[in-house]
């Protein structure tokens, strides 16, 4: 695909696709049209206050 920016892409400028009768920002349209191309496979890492019950209490020596 050559250039997806055929409408204002940034900010909240509303455009109307003329079919649904509802306004839609071009940014949201870009997301809809390119979701599979732009999704990132992120890790399942999380952090929060409080302690977890760990399997072990101390850091075991690392293998040489």
């Amino acid at each position, binding site marked *: 695909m050559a250039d997806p920016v055929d409408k204002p892409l940034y900010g909240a400028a509303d455009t109307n696709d003329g079919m649904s009768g509802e306004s839609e920002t071009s940014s949201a349209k870009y997301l809809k049209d390119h979701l599979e191309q732009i999704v*990132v496979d*992120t890790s*399942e890492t*999380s952090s929060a*206050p409080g*302690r977890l019950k760990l399997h072990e209490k101390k850091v075991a020596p690392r293998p040489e």
Partner: protein
Amino acid sequence: MSQVELVRERWIFDHIAPDVRSITLEYTVRNRGPDELFQIFLPLNAFLANLQVLDENGRELNYLPNREVERALQEVKKEKPAAYERAVASTPHPQYRISIVLPKDAPLGPGEMRTLRLVHTDGEKPRYLFLRALTLPSYHIAHVRRVGQPYGIHVAVNAPPDTQLEVELDDETVRSREHYHATPPQDIDYHFNAYLPPPGDEPYVWRANYHMGPTLMEELILTGWLFLAAIGGVWVFAAAFVGGASGMGPKEMLAIAGGLSATSAGLLLGLRNAWASRYLKLLLPVFAVAAVAWLRWFVLGG
């Protein structure tokens, strides 16, 4: 199929104080497709409070408002259910996601790399260790690695320089893997680093608890003084009002009460560290008891 390859992920926990931290979730991505990209869609594991998105030059980036993302995803779900399943529904927490809008003059071109920093804070108040005289907040980091993710993850915890960082790890399933690294306990001062390698064919779990505060010696001295001042304060108070100083004269009792109250007052006025708030609340009544006892012994003619 996604055009965006995640090259590296970094989690950086910067503590301004033991219970105040700024979390930087950093993604380095590469465009491996033929088209320029104008947005990056990131599934997240949780709501990120006070979020600010920056690129590698510190330039603040916009992200789409929730209502627009929600609406776009609902349309994808209706029109292309398979794409929705792959990109959203199959992620661990599909309700959390963000679509970052790249600057107009800097889309992600084919082959280009970009670092995106999601700087945020905790969305909930700190939790403190039980049965400690000091206010020591604790945190955990949990990491589950799925098969098929080819990138490594860096974790860094930076404690304030006047504190001691303590980290407990649960890294059994990753410890023997090539390139795995975690700062050995004896080398942890106020920095901790870990590198979690790609999982290969075996998924793994890595978890850590950490907290920070004064050094062990400082904590022992302060806690010891609290107990000593509490016992001594009750004793001089009881002796002043009930009797039973067992051989001590008024001058000796006045000196003991004066020492207890003066030292406690010094700590109350001098300790300004964030980890001391619980300690000061415990020490205040101890000081009050010793001070009242001192006044009583003073009046009695010490």
